[in-house]
């Protein structure tokens, strides 16, 4: 990342490249890297940055793409997932975008990747030191739904006035008898800043705690970057009498038989048949490659998933 890599070859007659390496210009990448450094220095604090127009609309991961673009180098290996899956449209598009503009190697294997861009999930495999996971964030401000004024929420963060965040949990308990929030469950980072973990399921919240990898969060539309440095305390908020719990399933993964992963419910027909499969496609494929089988291992979906795993885009 220290050397400025050569841009991909151009088709222009002038010989000039069509775009700078990794799409963003060097000054922009520098500005983003500075924001990242600040974010890492103050865990959980939202650092404003000059978010750029990207070739995709806001909401499609512009924050995450800008973070990736400012960090990626040709020696990196890039993995991109959307809802845990490597083969969904957005993941495939962003992966091929960086393969094209940054000349970076891509992979679907969590353990091989140096940079993982994700929407809505943290991979099931334990991430390692040296890896960077980049989250796409639609709304970085966990207090926003309760307090619409930015000036006020900034003051609340500055003075650690976090009573308001518990109002949303109180609402949950009084309405549903439990803390029913399932995604974007607010966390306390290093006992200082309350942070939105982006809309990952609360199943993934414990994975953020003391994780050896660097976790970066980018919100393109809201122009904020924040971070959890490696080995940082991350605590999910709760009440003394309603402790934090994660989702659990009665079923195992229909394809690989896993019981410890986050499941997606797949509706199979209009007669009420459904199956539960691992949301993390690489985790599921890895288990199946080891010969582990779930109750519907021979289903057509399994073959389709295996195909896409064998032929990386």
């Amino acid at each position, binding site marked *: 990342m220290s050397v400025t890599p050569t841009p991909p070859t151009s088709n222009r007659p002038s010989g000039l490249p069509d775009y700078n390496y990794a799409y963003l210009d060097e000054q922009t990448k520098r500005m983003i890297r500075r924001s990242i450094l600040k974010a890492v220095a103050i865990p959980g604090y939202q650092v404003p940055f000059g978010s750029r127009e990207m070739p995709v609309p806001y909401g499609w991961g512009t924050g995450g793409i800008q973070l990736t673009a400012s960090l990626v180098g040709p020696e990196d290996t890039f993995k991109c997932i959307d809802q845990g899956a490597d083969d969904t449209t957005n993941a495939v598009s962003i992966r091929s975008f960086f393969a094209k503009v940054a000349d970076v190697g891509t992979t679907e294997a969590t353990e091989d990747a140096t940079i993982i861009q994700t929407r809505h999930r943290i991979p099931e495999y334990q991430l390692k030191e040296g890896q960077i996971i980049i989250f796409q964030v639609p709304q970085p401000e966990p207090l926003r739904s*309760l307090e619409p004024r930015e000036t006020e929420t900034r*003051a609340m963060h500055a003075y650690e006035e976090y*009573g308001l965040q518990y109002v949303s949990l*109180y609402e949950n308990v*009084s309405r549903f008898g439990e803390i029913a929030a399932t995604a974007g469950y607010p966390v306390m980072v290093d006992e200082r800043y309350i942070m939105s973990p982006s809309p990952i399921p609360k199943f993934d919240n414990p994975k953020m705690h003391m994780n050896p990898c660097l976790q970066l969060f980018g919100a393109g539309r809201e122009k904020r970057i924040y971070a959890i440095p490696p080995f940082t305390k991350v605590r999910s908020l709760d009440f003394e009498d309603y402790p934090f719990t994660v989702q659990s399933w009665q079923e195992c993964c229909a394809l690989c038989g896993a019981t410890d992963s986050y499941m997606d419910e797949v509706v199979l027909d209009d007669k009420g048949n459904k199956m539960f499969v691992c949301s993390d496609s690489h985790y599921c494929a890895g288990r199946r490659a080891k010969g582990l089988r779930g109750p519907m291992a021979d289903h057509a979906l399994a073959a389709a998933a295996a195909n896409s795993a064998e032929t990386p885009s």
Partner: protein
Amino acid sequence: MSQAALASPLSLVPESPILSVADCSKMYGPIVGCRDVSFDLYPGEVLGIVGESGSGKSTLLNCISGRLKPTDGTVSFAVKGGDLADIFSLSEPERRRLQREEWGFVHQNPRDGLRMRVSAGANVAEPLMNLGDRHYGTMREKTIDWLTRVELDIARVDDNPKNFSGGMQQRIQIARNLIHGPRLIFMDEPTGGLDVSVQARLLDLLRGLVRRLGMSAIIVTHDLAVARLLADRLMVMRSGSVVEMGLTDQVLDDPQHPYTQLLVSAVLQI
């Protein structure tokens, strides 16, 4: 006025004021908001501020409740330990802590003082969470206790404020501002816009609560009946200045300033 109401300011004989305002002025450019207002408020005392609209009542209330910085003068509050501290020379987090933990502010319009998107129960419980309460069960109990005290149907504790009538919303706001046991409560026309029967019940309720809890209160109103019922002392304002100040009954029964005489005589007798 009941015996208890009469007795409380006399029997307390407090040694030091809880709030002391000195030469408080607020200018909006060339326009006077309020000018050179000075008074002391003692623990357990209820001060009424009356005057016509535009007389600077709300400006004064916003200044002394720390929501608006006065152009001139000081507002001092007896912080814990008993010493008077100028609230505008405190640090911002310290001032916000005072506002949150030791004061209450009842807005004229309940929609300004409530979070309309969360339930009545969560609105009432919020001050407890701000004070660091993290036990749902005990907060729930206190919430229901307070909703009972302000005579709301506890079966509707989880309804959104927008589904309550104006008078009920005002009672939710009052419960929200009293649950954490503030030492001082500011009220800006707490009964404005309510019909007279609801007003009467609310006044009854407020009078009982303020007397029983022994808190100090500053009530801004343009309704002399409200002032008569709730306030120990009365301050009459006109064009930003205080024209008369004294015990409520004294001011209303024997007004000295021509404007106060006009104000008192303008009340319709039914």
